């Protein structure tokens, strides 16, 4: 195997970006037992906020990251309050249908608004070399930001009262209520946070890759696998599985074949389904 460090670095960068999308998806599932098909579309919308901030206002994606997150937080929270809240506690199929419909609406109207044109931000494209690993600055910045944001999420969940409220709601809604927690607010907050993190991922993708209205679904497909791998509802599991996914893609492509690599996460998934049916991180609750 040539350049294992480079492969490791590539896998980690990709994994970090996946993790931003995946932790939110898992968080939302944990708190409200809703599989949000529109989650990837939040990443897409965030990406377009960053893109237009760049294209019209000349704002660097590192600057527009926060506004993009804020906008998508409000969008997500509003959507949750108005629409998603109505299917909480209903059968999974109801929420699947609803979020699938929302996804269709979001990406179809995005296709009208933004056209199907592929776009991207050319920013910090110069490569740098460190320890024999060469990478665009944008990848490195994206990696670091993704880590910071996921770290911030974990700290938020662990140490703040609203964070604990979200975890409590995720672990047992009835008890959370009996403990005086406004679970509805916790759900809205969790949904908004999930959307904001996805928006952050979108912003980073606009810098390291390219964006288009349909991208949400492609990322959803990957992150859904990640979330199942990590254990539905487990935020820590989603994080670990996202990196596992990125590394499998990277090493699988180089060591086996690019054609086999995409199947590896599913092989892992099947293995986990056999040996640990509830995912890498056991119980289906948001943890630590």
């Amino acid at each position, binding site marked *: 195997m040539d350049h294992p460090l480079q492969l490791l670095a590539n896998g980690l960068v990709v994994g970090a970006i996946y993790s931003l999308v995946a932790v939110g998806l898992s968080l939302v599932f944990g708190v409200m037992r809703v599989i949000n098909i529109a989650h990837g579309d939040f990443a897409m919308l965030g990406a377009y906020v960053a893109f237009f901030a760049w294209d019209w206002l000349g704002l660097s994606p590192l600057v527009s990251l926060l506004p993009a997150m804020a906008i998508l937080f409000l969008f997500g929270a509003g959507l949750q309050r108005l629409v998603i809240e109505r299917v909480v506690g209903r059968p999974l199929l109801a929420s699947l249908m609803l979020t699938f419909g929302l996804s269709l609406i979001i990406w179809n109207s995005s296709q009208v608004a933004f056209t*199907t044109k*592929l*776009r991207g931000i*050319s920013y910090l494209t110069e490569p740098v070399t460190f320890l024999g690993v060469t990478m665009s600055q944008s990848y490195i910045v994206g990696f670091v930001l993704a880590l910071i944001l996921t770290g911030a999420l974990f700290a938020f969940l662990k140490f703040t009262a609203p964070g604990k409220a979200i975890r409590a709601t995720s672990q047992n809604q009835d008890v959370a209520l009996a403990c005086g927690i406004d679970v509805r607010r916790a759900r809205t907050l969790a949904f908004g946070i999930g959307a904001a993190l996805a928006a952050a991922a979108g912003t980073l993708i606009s810098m*390291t890759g390219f964006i288009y209205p349909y991208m949400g679904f492609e990322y959803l497909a990957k992150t859904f696998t990640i979330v199942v791998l990590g254990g539905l509802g487990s935020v820590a599991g989603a994080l670990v599985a996202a990196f596992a996914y990125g590394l499998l893609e*990277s090493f699988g492509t180089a060591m086996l074949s*690019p054609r086999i690599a995409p199947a590896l996460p599913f092989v892992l998934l099947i293995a986990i389904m056999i040996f640990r049916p509830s995912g890498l991180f056991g119980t289906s609750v948001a943890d630590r």
Partner: protein
Amino acid sequence: MCSRKYVPSNDTGLTRRNFIKTTGVVAIGTAIAGHIPTIFAQQKKPLRIGASISLTGKYARSGEEQHKGYMLWAKHVNELGHSYGKADLPNSGEPGLLGRPVELIVLDDRSDPTTGVRLYNELIHSRQVDLLLGPYSSAVTNAVAPIIENAQIPTPNPMASSTAIWEGRNLQWQVQVQPPGSRRLPGLTQVAMEHGDEKIAIIYEDSEFPRNAAKALRARAKEDGLQIVLDTAYPVKITDWTPIVQQVMNSGATVLAGGGYLPDAIGITRATRSLGYQPNILSLLVGVALPDYRDTLGKAALTVTGDADWTPNVNYPGAQKYVEAYRSEYGGVPEYHSAGGYGAAQILEEAVRRAGTVDDFEKIRDIMFELKTTTVFNLYEVAPLDSPDSGLQLAANRVMLQVQEADGKLENAVVYPDEAANAQWIYPFQ
């Protein structure tokens, strides 16, 4: 064999006088309904031309362009009685095709070949369209081919460059309009050899069109004595090309060629820049020709080469008028998919006009296979009906482009072949 579809003619002959007499009604009709077929509402049964195109999904961007080409063609035929560059054909001048207003029935196959098959069956059997145009992409075209052969409807395919669809299959009812994939990236191997490059890496998306393009590249590389140090397909769904380009780097190749569509071109270029890989030639399929490529990548796109079936500065008859019409209808500059769509429809138009009927499919088909002509898109001539590769495109050419900077703006310069070039090939890749 299967249902030979003769639609009974209800051609009552639209005279010029008739037409003028009804224009008053027409004006009102148009004002109310706001679209062209109304003009003919009381005259002639519309000529319904069906196609499925990828309007959503992976190929949406290109499919949409092709659709615009079809729509512009229908508009011109309905308004002018001919498309640009085809004014001198028999039976032209009268609005519509042989006097019948063209109505496009376009369905969305969501970039999925299986859906395409279902939709063409639907168009032929339940919607009973009069004529057909091809779908977008080699993959969908290939899947749909047996359906069209069975239904025996003459169909020009604008956006199928894969030769495998035609080679050795003796197709009787469909022709290729796009330059075949085997003529992709013209000049690549010659220029590489001239500069003393020895090692080439070919990476390509694992789907119909890129596979065929890679096959042709492989053959040409071998022919020209280049050593293929890496030759690998990657799956359709990938979003990060870094690991693959990493492999190319490790292989020691000084020429990297391949890709697939626009996303691949952007992704491979991003990965190449990110890894600091410096080949002498970076040449990618499809994407480089599109303005999105330069818009997305900015200066990272510089000196990347790619090819095109068509560029907006070509001088085929009617092409410049077409570019103008596109600009005023949709804004912006047309891409080759739209010119291809327009051009394919022009082949159908010419065959129908020369046949003087829309109902005698055999006659239209025979003309379509014998025709030697030029559209706004390219030259046209296909392998004859009795040959094993019947319908395969023989005349259409491609040009090699390179992203270059001129007056601070990024442009696609034509760098190969020499007769067509408006700039020098910048070597090596920077």
